[in-house]
């Protein structure tokens, strides 16, 4: 019966791994990358992550669709670091207060690669993990309180509904003569009014949903799980993979002499 439940047509290998194992692996990689700003560790991690794409059923197009804000943010962060960081080494470009030197370019590149290497695993994780399975794992394996986990999961479903509601309220208010056009102040006022309308609807929906859940016996101390969340041999490999990528990134950076601990870095 369990096999019938799957992630919107994605049957890639990693969809079968336990969400908690995937989460831990991602956490390990992210932790290492958060420690050092250097381009070697980030590039190594990034290269491995790109290799994992097929295993998660992710393609470059899908990656762009789901992760473009993160990718743009990483590129922007790298660029601003390159022009604003204190100059060290040869000056490559100079326009008054903005200048790019060999040192700041390296720092900027490291920053951008690091941003990407940290963001990609998150996209990777979400594209091969169903939120319901994640909630199951968090409640059953990580032993988080089930009332909290399932409450959040049910509320998440309402978020999609709220996006539709936002559009409807916008139209409904235009039909009352509240324009979303005009000067910035008028637009801000219109947006605030629309937000209030959405808030009212969100609260109404949420309290009705709460009644629905309570009427289905939710909220007791004990419950069973129709979808037991278990670990398998695959999860060992997922954990080892995460550990391996993290270790490879550190080893490469130490070997290349670029390891640069964030908290000890000299400005």
């Amino acid at each position, binding site marked *: *019966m369990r096999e*019938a*439940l*799957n992630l*919107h047509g994605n049957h890639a290998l990693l969809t079968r791994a336990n969400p908690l194992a995937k989460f831990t692996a991602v956490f390990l990689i992210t932790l290492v990358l958060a420690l050092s700003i250097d381009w070697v560790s980030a590039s190594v991690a990034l290269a491995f992550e790109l290799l994992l794409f097929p295993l998660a059923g992710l393609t470059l*197009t899908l990656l*762009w*669709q789901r992760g473009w804000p993160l990718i743009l943010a990483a590129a922007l962060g790298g660029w601003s670091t390159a022009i604003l960081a204190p100059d060290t080494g040869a000056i490559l470009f100079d326009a008054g207060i903005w200048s790019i030197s060999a040192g700041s370019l390296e720092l900027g590149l490291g920053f951008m690669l690091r941003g990407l290497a940290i963001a990609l695993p998150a996209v990777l994780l979400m594209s091969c993990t*169903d*939120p*319901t399975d994640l909630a199951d794992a968090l409640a059953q394996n990580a032993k988080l309180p089930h009332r909290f986990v399932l409450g959040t*999961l*049910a509320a998440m*479903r309402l978020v*999609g*509904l709220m996006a539709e509601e936002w*559009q*409807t*309220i916008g*139209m*409904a*208010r*235009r*039909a*009352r*003569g*509240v*324009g*979303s*056009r005009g000067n910035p102040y008028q637009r801000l006022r219109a947006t605030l*009014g629309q937000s209030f*309308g959405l808030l*009212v*609807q969100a609260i*109404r*929906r949420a309290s*009705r*949903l709460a*009644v*629905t*859940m*309570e*009427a*289905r*016996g*939710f*909220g*007791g101390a*004990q*419950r*069973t*799980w*129709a*979808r*037991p969340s278990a670990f398998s041999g695959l999860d060992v490999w997922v954990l080892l993979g995460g550990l391996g990528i993290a270790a490879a990134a550190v080893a490469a950076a130490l070997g290349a002499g670029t390891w640069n601990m964030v908290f000890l870095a000299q400005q």
Partner: protein
Amino acid sequence: MTSSDRVRPAAITARGWGWRHAGRPRPAVNGLDLDIRPGERVLLLGPSGSGKSTLLHALAGVLGDSSAGAGDAEDADETGSLLLDGAPPRAQRGRAGLVQQDPETQVVLSRLGDDVAFGAENLSVPPAEIWQRVQEALDDVGLARLPLDHPTSDLSGGQKQRLALAGILAMRPGLLLLDEPTANLDPAGVLEVRDAVGRCLDKTGATLVVVEHRVAVWKDLVDRIVVLQPGSATDSAVLIDGAPDQVLEQARDMLIAAGVWVPGHVPRTRARTSRASPAPTDPEARPAGQLLLVAEQLAVSRERPRRAGLRRGFRSIAPQPVQSGIAAQVRAGEALTITGPNGSGKSTFALTLAGLLPPVSGAVSATVELSAGAGIDPHKWSAQQLIARIGTVFQEPEHQFVTGRVLDELMFGPRHLGYGEERVDELLERLRLTELVDANPYTLSGGEKRRLSVATVLAAHPQVLVLDEPTFGQDANTWAELASFLSELLDAGAAVVSVTHDEEFTAVLGGTELRLDAPGHPEPDKVLRP
């Protein structure tokens, strides 16, 4: 049918039971004495404010739950006793199952099978048995053909309500509580849900209490009707109690007066008097039949154009239309009714016609008579230009409330336009809102909210009125008022465009029917009686 399918039906005993919600001066229910035997099927009727929903929530054990909302429970006030099989409902999770009105909030999880399993999980049913119950429950409500991982967001309103029913059946409750489960559904959805409930009751033998003001839908399924009246200190909360035919005969006039949809009775409405020119003394009105708005080769969608990816140069991609090739004409003094099954894009078309959504392709054009200098494309008009020309009443009145007071709500349009404030008093009077001028719009009853939303839009004096399912969930009195009022507007020269499943409503307004069929091409216009 095997004996294992049957559940132990629940008995209900109320003795002088009353409930006052926290922060309310008067009790919602007072002095209720009622006995419902195991396996009985009861239709609960009564005017709004008689505490029907409160009773259902209490039986479901979700009223002022002491473990969750302790604050509420302190302020709320309970008197007498209400027992389920001799014990308080709150202590018996899963003994009663509740289906509410809004299909969206009846779904808890995003996959069909998981949602049905949710209640059974909460009752600590062993996992292997849960999936057996899930399959059986889906079978009973007629959803077994869908895969267990079918996204619940893709279901229609009727399917969502049947899913909610399945989720409850998987808990094997002795009591089914239905709180206007079909009020938000189209006629096909109403029958789907009603028939599913009937099948499940025949199979399990559970007790049923259903609240619904469309009596005809449930009459043949229930074996008793109980009519409640608003709580008072002295009178009993139960006004009439008996077999359906007997109650409908005895209390027919009283039920009709209370706005209940009594079978065989169509509420009296004002007939259309003419489609001819209105009195020449009214300078505002245009000659009837004047063309105001035209849709040609129109394709509609709620989605906005997407941006293509890097490889295709971020070009704008038009969304997939829900309906295309629509042609329609809106004329002064004439009604246009848009009908068709769910998902055929009726509302989307109406919103596009009303200048609220941009067309995917094709065009909506206003004639000079309507645009009066504002340009040909209603979607490009400013909000103020729009409301003075085309007024749109949304299905959910609350979406359109922009102030905290009924009077401000009505004055909003005229104040922004700088004219028309004098008409507000007339609208207040005409739609019986005078008593409510200082009330907060959100606190009104369903019928009052509907009347207010129509009045606010009309206060800006539009020549074209667009209404999206204006009669959904309305009691017979509000229905009749609304239909009469619109017939009056039509005779005064306004154009009325309505999206509706309601054939009686369409008949009152007359005019042209535009039928949209599930994605594909619409049939040519079909002319109703004038």
